[in-house]
């Protein structure tokens, strides 16, 4: 068995120590919120959210810092060395070993389909750093493990609205870069490249839906989906598509990569649901990376208050 000492994810050891600074800052914010003396500092995040142009109604009262308040944030090293990113290989440690070859600048995103303002946009103009906010979300992989990740980025809904989707836009389809020279895993036909994911338009417009460009206070490492990836925390991890180059508004439900590969095992919705077992993994429980005992898996990964309405009247055993 291999023992890896080298890491190539563009982050030096000295930068990794920032985790302590990040944790210290988080502790400070929590303490200052408790004392009530530093209201200004602690409300930094909610101010950001509220100052967004025309936020959806449901934003009000949503405190993204509190979403994962009970959870211990997973270590930076685990988040950046234990990845499923088949474009760089099927091993959990492959992305951290091989993703350094990916060139993320320049990076453009092509927007097309049922919208009034399609076009090709530079990622820096779509999501400038000064607009980034932090979201601490649980991530539940379909394989039965989970993490808690402090993402940096922008909410998805306001961005999508800038392209002015038409009434025909019932779904949003996302596509990952296809560049086998830089993504060695694409040389094997493990999946039908490029990777495709999708959301129903109301799921995409949900305030939880997020585009991450960073984590732990810094720019996203390549193996985590740089420069821009989706984060939909109430769905299994594979829905949160990485290194996005194409967004299109569609009338019909996109055929996503895993559905295409195995329609009996993977559904379009793929909401975290302990009642619907996978043929290979029980979905009742999960192992939180960094912990010894398993947790019970929660319906919608614990985000039911924010997303359960989206599926009212739907048989989630059928639409798994």
């Amino acid at each position, binding site marked *: *068995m291999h023992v890896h000492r080298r890491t190539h994810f563009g982050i030096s050891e000295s930068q990794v120590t920032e985790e302590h600074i990040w944790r210290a800052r988080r502790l400070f914010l929590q303490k200052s919120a408790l004392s009530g003396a530093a209201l200004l500092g602690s409300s930094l995040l909610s101010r950001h959210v509220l100052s967004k142009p025309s936020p959806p109604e449901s934003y009000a009262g949503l405190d993204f810092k509190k979403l994962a308040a009970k959870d211990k944030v997973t270590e930076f090293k*685990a988040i950046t060395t234990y990845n499923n990113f088949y474009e760089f290989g*099927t091993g*959990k440690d492959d992305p951290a070993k091989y993703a350094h070859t990916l060139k993320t600048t320049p990076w453009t995103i092509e927007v097309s389909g049922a919208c009034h303002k399609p076009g090709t946009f530079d990622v820096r103009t779509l999501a400038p750093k000064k607009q980034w906010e932090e979201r601490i979300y649980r991530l539940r992989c379909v394989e039965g493990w989970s993490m808690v990740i402090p993402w940096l980025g922008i909410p998805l809904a306001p961005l999508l609205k800038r392209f002015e989707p038409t009434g025909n836009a019932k779904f949003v389809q996302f596509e990952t870069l296809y560049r086998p020279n830089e993504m060695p895993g694409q040389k094997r036909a493990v999946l039908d490249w490029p990777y495709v994911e999708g959301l129903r338009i109301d799921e995409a417009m949900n305030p939880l839906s997020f585009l991450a460009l960073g984590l732990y206070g810094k720019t996203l490492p390549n193996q985590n989906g740089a420069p821009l990836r989706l984060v939909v925390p109430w769905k299994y991890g594979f829905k949160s598509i990485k290194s996005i180059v194409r967004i299109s508004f569609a009338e019909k439900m996109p055929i996503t990569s895993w559905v295409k590969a195995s329609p009996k095992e993977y559904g379009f919705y793929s909401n975290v649901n302990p009642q619907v077992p996978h043929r290979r*993994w*029980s979905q009742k429980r999960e*192992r939180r*990376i960094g912990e*010894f005992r*398993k947790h019970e898996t929660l319906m919608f990964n614990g985000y039911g208050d924010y997303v359960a309405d989206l599926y009212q009247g739907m048989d989630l055993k059928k639409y798994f």
Partner: protein
Amino acid sequence: MNSKRLQKALRGALYILNFAPGIVLAGRFLLHDLGPNPIEEVLLYSGFWALVLLLCTLSISPLVKIFALGWLMPTRKWFGLGAFFYATCHLLFYLALDQELNLDWIVEDVLDRWFIFLGSGAFLLLLPLALTSNKMMLRRLGAKTWQKLHLLIYPGTFLALLHFYFKKAAKNDDQEPLIYLGIFVLLIAWRLLRKLKRK
């Protein structure tokens, strides 16, 4: 160095090969070098070595017969026992670490998941071989019965390989299991051809 001593040295090396993965694993455990998901890592690692040593076991008699390497024969038993050792570790890691010795979880897992069912079957087929591996049992059973019993290594290995295949196929990652299945098919094909020629 005369050839007898060389053979002895080579046999010794193969003997040690059985222990090496276990020693490496213990070392990695002590050095906290099992990665972000240590339970998954020890499961994959022990399962991997059980499979590799099973294929080693099945490779010995073809090697002996093709290249007239009679002195290799004793290593077959070591490889067989080595494979069983890692398979037992694999099972214990699964029961204790992955399933936390929770009987309800285990029963559900074995019945609901095809690959777990196959893995359990593989272990049950290999168990009697390990129990009858000593000379005393050989004598008690008689060579004929003993040999017949030990034919169980073929279905046992096949189920173990299927167990690995169906586990990996879930994420379309079937390259590695297909390589092992290919080796297994070659080893079986050689035996069948030899039997046909003899007739």
